[in-house]
């Protein structure tokens, strides 16, 4: 009977350790938080070239993450890319209408994300509006081409 007790204890500790391990993987490794996803609102932005921007990429403002990209599709009217952004609801009615969105790269080889910078228009962007002033992703080939042609003219 005593042997069975220690066995039960061993199995109990084993299972508890497994569950604690899963909690560790959730909290420490994948950075899961218990806060529910807050309210969001949608903005659209058209870019001439999105580079390698992916859905779920970050949207930042002054380096702080304020939302994410939800959709990227080809706009067949203008033949550019329409990107749908989902931003924190507290920014609704706070961003001036002439704010700009640029596609930036984190580090040399890092992922691409969208950086917003504030304009000065008194009117503000609300749900479903489009950001007019955008800056496309930097494509390395174009940069090199420009550099080479500059060299040639000099």
């Amino acid at each position, binding site marked *: 009977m005593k042997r*069975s007790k220690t*066995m*039960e204890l*061993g*199995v109990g*500790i*084993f*299972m508890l*350790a*497994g569950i604690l*391990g*899963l909690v*560790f*993987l*959730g909290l*420490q*490794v*994948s*950075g*899961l938080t218990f806060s529910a996803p807050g309210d969001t609102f949608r903005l659209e932005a058209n870019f001439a070239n999105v580079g390698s921007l992916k859905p779920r990429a970050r949207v930042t403002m002054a380096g702080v993450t304020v939302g994410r990209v939800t959709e990227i599709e080809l706009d067949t009217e203008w033949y550019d890319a329409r990107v749908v952004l989902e931003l924190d609801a507290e920014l609704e009615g706070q961003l001036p209408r002439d704010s700009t969105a640029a596609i930036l790269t984190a*580090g*040399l*080889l890092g992922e691409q994300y969208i950086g917003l910078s504030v304009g000065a228009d008194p009117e503000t962007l609300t749900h479903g509006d489009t950001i007019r002033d955008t800056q496309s992703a930097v494509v390395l080939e174009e940069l090199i081409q420009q550099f080479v042609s500059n060299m040639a003219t000099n």
Partner: protein
Amino acid sequence: MIARLQQLGRRGCDGLETLGRAGVFLALSSFGVPSREGWHLWLRQMHFVGVLSLAIVLVSGLFIGMVLALQGYTILVDFGAEQALGQMVALSLLRELSPVVAALLFAGRAGSALTAEIGLMKATEQLTSMEMIGVDPLRRVVAPRLWAGFVALPLLTVGFSVVGIVGGYLVGVEWLGVFDGSYWANMQASVDFLDDVVNGMVKSLVFALVVTWIAVFQGYDLIPTSEGISRATTRTVVYSSLVVLGLDFVLTAMMFGGLS
């Protein structure tokens, strides 16, 4: 020529028959835990299959995590991207290495023992005697082992991941001098709980079912001689390893290959 064809056909029929028997066997034996006595049998098997496998799984996890960090560091430092070490260690462990390596170790440590145990019971006619006194060996012998394996391997896989990530931390941060904050922050930024941790667990559950199923079925279905037992034990390890690696490719293609 015709004899060859006939032989091939017989092989095919035998194979299908075995597969069918294994399926019926799984269906019959998976309903056997609820009674109080069954619970105790399950606990005993959990101890044997789970707790006693802990040492080998955790030690392997620690070393695999440390090797990953060391190898990853020497590659990443060329690109000046050694901050991404945590991300690399965590993703490769959670998505691939933990489920697969833990399942392979489990097949070698616990699966072969299950086959040999059940096989010897069959060879010494304990299973037949159980049937004679009205005890269903599927419920009494096979079901607790099946369920113990099904629960134990995912827990072992979690342990493997945790210890591996800590091992990577020890080598990467404490020894090689990657900044502590970027190790965890990069990891947290890139590891998604649903996509990575839960998918790894799903893989592990599938492997647990398959490995334990193969082990107990090989034990139950073997030819009851000493040679038969040794062959069945070998088959358990070989089949389990092959099936785990093959299924891993299929599952990875479904989860991360963009097929869904």
